[in-house]
């Protein structure tokens, strides 16, 4: 028989241990495990980046046929410069990029314009159907991959909804008194957003702006515009790929070209794909990726058969690899802008413009 004193001592010790344990578990739910210094989980696909914030749609207007203009309001919005875009995280979780087309000086809100793409991947349809006045939406950014270059003269070329990053550029050039010209093409005048504002900007010197509606005027005369450009002017172009290719082909010597594809994440039709080379730095080999074949497939067939991958459609992230050099045409739906700076999903993404990529493999 244990003595009464022993029983009391053991009982008291048990109580003390229980209280001590309870206190620790309250402060640290998985005590005694430590925590990871920079937690990874719980950041969502958004990547939990500091630049993600929830904004409210405060204005929704029809800017042109099939084009919706949204004004999103929030507090402490970061400043931006013409050419910047934001990532919009749609209610379904899909992430789409839209250029900011409002006034950078209006600090409390961002303005976007979104064209409904009937046969697209559903992002623009979701914007049109699900973002109403009062809807909250997650926005990341802004970031600028298409800044306005310093120049003594500007030539702007916009195709359709590609006007969105160009418009703030035109306003800035106008404000700073830098000479500019704008060629703005579209399917029809009714479908071209911001026409009224642009014609107002053109003011008296109406030949600064050329509006070309395909149904009335046919195709824009890019050659004439570029030939008449001031020497050493900066050309900024945003629109469909064929327009940008045509501008690149016609560009006279001395002019510098800056472009932005307005659907960076949309997979290009196979006809647009070009072959390119991929250098595997650690393996010490170079592989040619033919048009119509993914980097993943080319590498697996020609060099590294055990490369991990899974979905082959750019969403699961298994095939992410580090890029050491070269410009990537990102076609995935997963990576954040920060991740895109130094990595790619090799199942869908390619080298931009058929240039060369160097991978850490």
């Amino acid at each position, binding site marked *: 028989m244990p003595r009464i004193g022993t029983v009391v001592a053991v009982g008291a010790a048990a109580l003390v241990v229980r209280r001590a344990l309870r206190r620790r*578990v*309250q402060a*640290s*739910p*998985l005590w005694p*495990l*430590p*925590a*990871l210094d920079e*937690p*990874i*989980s*719980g*950041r*969502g*696909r*958004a990547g*939990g980046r500091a630049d993600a914030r929830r904004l409210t749609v405060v204005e929704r207007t029809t800017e042109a046929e099939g084009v919706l203009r949204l004004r999103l309001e929030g507090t402490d919005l970061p400043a931006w410069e013409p050419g910047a875009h934001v990532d919009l995280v749609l*209610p*379904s*979780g*899909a992430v789409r990029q839209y250029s900011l087309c409002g006034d950078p000086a209006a600090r409390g809100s961002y303005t976007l314009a979104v064209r409904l793409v009937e*046969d*697209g*991947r*559903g992002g623009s349809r979701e914007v049109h159907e699900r973002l109403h006045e009062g809807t909250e939406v997650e926005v990341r950014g802004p970031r600028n991959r298409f800044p306005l270059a310093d120049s003594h003269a500007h030539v702007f070329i916009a195709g359709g909804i590609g006007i969105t990053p160009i418009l703030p550029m035109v306003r800035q050039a106008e404000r700073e008194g830098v000479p500019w010209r704008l060629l703005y093409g579209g399917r029809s005048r009714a479908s071209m957003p911001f026409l009224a504002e642009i014609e107002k900007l053109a003011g008296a010197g109406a030949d600064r702006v050329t509006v070309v509606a395909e149904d009335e005027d046919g195709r824009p005369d890019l050659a004439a515009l570029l030939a008449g450009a001031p020497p050493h002017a900066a050309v900024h172009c945003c629109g469909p790929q064929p327009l940008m290719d045509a501008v690149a082909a016609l560009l006279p010597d001395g002019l510098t070209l800056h472009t932005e594809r307005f659907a960076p994440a*949309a*997979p290009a039709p196979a006809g647009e794909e070009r072959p390119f080379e991929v250098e595997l730095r650690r393996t010490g080999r170079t592989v040619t990726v033919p048009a119509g074949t993914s980097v993943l497939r080319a590498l697996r067939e020609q060099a590294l058969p*055990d490369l*991990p*991958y*899974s*979905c082959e*459609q750019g*969403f*699961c*992230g*298994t095939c992410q690899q580090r890029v050491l050099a070269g410009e990537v045409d990102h076609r995935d*739906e997963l990576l954040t802008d920060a991740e895109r700076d130094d990595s790619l999903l090799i199942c869908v993404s390619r080298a931009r413009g058929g240039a060369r990529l160097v991978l850490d493999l």
Partner: protein
Amino acid sequence: MSNKASLRPQPVASEHTPLKARNVAFDWADTPLHWIPGDPASTHTINVLHLLLPAGERWFVHVYKQALPYVRDARLRADVIGFIGQEAMHSQAHDEVLPHLKDQGLDPTPYTAQVDWLFEKLLGDRTLPPGRARRWWLLERIALIAAIEHYTAFLGDWVLNAGALDARGADPTMLDLLRWHGAEEVEHRSVAFDLFVHLDGGYRRRVRTWATAFGALVFLWQRGIRFFMENDPTLADGRATFREFLRGGRDGVLPTAGAMARSIPQYLSRSYHPSQHGDTAQAVAYLAGSPAATAAEAGTTGGA
């Protein structure tokens, strides 16, 4: 002879199905904190999944990428590749729930940061000499995953059949997440075990890693329920009790303790093969009608 045969895993060939990842997305805006109405204890018991799976399934993918070069069987290789993509999507999908919990005043970060440490550091890659030591650590982790997958398949099969959740009016989006995930777990339930058998298959390792995984799951789960109940802003005196867990089982909104106990000898049987339990046809049928899975299907085939 028959005696000897029964000591080997006995797969059921008809349960095999080709695997592919589905690009699902869920909108949590309308999901209430207690998504099983009026039953916070059971809600939080299931919510522990969201704490463990983002880091855990990310770790599966990490380990399996390293295992891929050792797979010498074409069909198993295809299975492992499909498995990796499905697990990556599970991890992403559960991770998306965590900010939603935080928005509702239940910040999961203190717990998930420790789970992150468990999978990234304790179970992560170690600086081991190439050769035997490194291979041992890889095999140990592959065996752990096989043991954990026994339980994910168990839970997947349970949630596909848990009609009580519908009857109680559980949130349809959360149910679709759990059943899409559960159905894919049932679809690929044999892959982890097949990979383990392909690379090692030792019975002692199977038992040892099962004991580790089971102990860890019990520890993580009870601490997780306790964490949620104590930090739930809507509960004045939230406490996790074993009695509530048994009650959930009786009501059919949680697996029963008896079913869990019965699943233990299944895994430890020498003739165990995951295809003996669960129903692939049921899983495939669910995926054919799941709102998230069908939307993913439409998005990947129709998208340009």
